[in-house]
């Protein structure tokens, strides 16, 4: 059921905690021990705002094991406001309404369950803003 692996990721999954490089100012999500741009090890945690836009998207009709109950769902490359790209599902939007450039915000949703008696994995997804 991968409990320890998912548990280790909760700061990232619940709160989009990444890193920023104190040497060159680059920001990374997921977090990195070494800045990929300038190779400095002077990085510190950074919590991203969750605001972003759709960079690319795809509606999935054949899912890998564990995600079949959600088909068809749309995944996206999300360009966070602060710069990095992150891979995530979109939610609270009709699959055929998604467009590149759509402005979105992070919400916390169920990523998957390990069966009816298994652990529930929660994490980030993104939904369109502008609904209120």
């Amino acid at each position: 059921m991968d409990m320890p692996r998912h548990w280790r990721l909760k700061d990232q999954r619940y709160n989009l905690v990444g890193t920023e490089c104190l040497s060159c100012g680059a920001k990374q999500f997921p977090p990195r021990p070494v800045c990929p741009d300038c190779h400095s090890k002077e990085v510190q945690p950074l919590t991203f705002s969750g605001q972003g836009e759709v960079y690319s998207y795809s509606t999935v009709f054949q899912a890998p094991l564990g995600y079949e109950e959600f088909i068809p769902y749309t995944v996206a490359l999300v360009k966070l406001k602060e710069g990095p790209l992150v891979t995530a599902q979109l939610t609270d939007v009709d699959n055929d309404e998604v467009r590149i450039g759509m402005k979105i915000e992070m919400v916390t949703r169920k990523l998957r369950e390990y069966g009816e008696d298994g652990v529930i994995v929660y994490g980030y997804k993104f939904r369109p803003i502008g609904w209120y």
Partner: protein
Amino acid sequence: MRDVSIIGIGQTKVGEHWEKSLRELAVESLQVAMADAGIEEADALYVGNMLGGEFAKQEHLGTLIADFAGLRGAEAFRVEAACCSGAAALRQGYLAVASGLHDIVVVTGVEKMTDALGCITAAGLALAADGDYEASQGLSLVAVHALLMRRYMYEYGAANADFAMFAVNAHRNAVGNPHAMFRQPISRDAFEKARMVADPINLLDSAPVADGAATVVLCPAGRAREFNEQSIRVTASAVATDSVALHDRRDPLFLESAYLSAQRAYRQAGVGPADIDVFELHDAFTIMSALSLEACGFARRGEGFKLAQNGDISLEGPIPICTMGGLKARGNPVGATGVYQVVEVVEQLRGQAGPNQVKGPRLGMAQNIGGSGATAITHILAVPN
């Protein structure tokens, strides 16, 4: 460093081999290759395989296959680099010979995917992606490539149908390859109407899951004549990496790993794209064909798909690709694919490609890619002077 030659090749048919196990498939291709090289023994065996542990519950494949192939005692281990495990094993074999450490080295790529079913297969392939940040979000490897394709289409104004000829060309060539999995041609129309898997990638846009094994035998170029009149020189072997996750790429629409790997290979071989007569590229999806052509210098950025539309990629064109069917129609038994690509380049350079023979090729290139562009391994082969 010594020059390295390929003195023997062997391959099984690619398909659904319900009756054959991993080790049986590997040994079958090994025996053909060793007979082709006229050898009974080898110093080392390197096995390329991605999913043996996951699907067949078998790790430790190098040793297992060496034993069952009659090579017990030799140096042997498995090499893994996701979908380019085959080329990685070849890289290992090349280094062993080039370094002077071994003389006769066997490289086998083997994969048995049909032991897993449905979504388990998709989950296995997704192991090539970033587990914590791509696969856990519900992405299959198809979905990762779909994200790539859709952005490419958006930036360059391409439509789904513009990629059709990559698949059509691959299938056309597979008709003439007795080892290919799918030997029927497909039409543009069929491609355009195919059901979506992860849009914009449809069923006819994705290389099929398959079983297969391919083997090459290497030796120092100086000794090649002892074994095979038709030895082929390995004039370049180069590996380059990028981020595993698509979202971590500096430029998601550029296969930096393929570019670097190709550049290193061109430099080593002292050639450029114009010298390449045959290119077995990594056409797991049509978008990868387009991007590979761009990264390796055969097309400008954003124009890779045009080479398919204008026929440049056909057997008769200036840059024939997938000459024996490619991943799309010959099939993609992932860990074995890299070795199949090299076997096919050798067939072309030896003039043994049958109905698919490209006219008088002297230089061939094979490029095997792991994940969505995380690792790229390029080999350039040449007819010796």
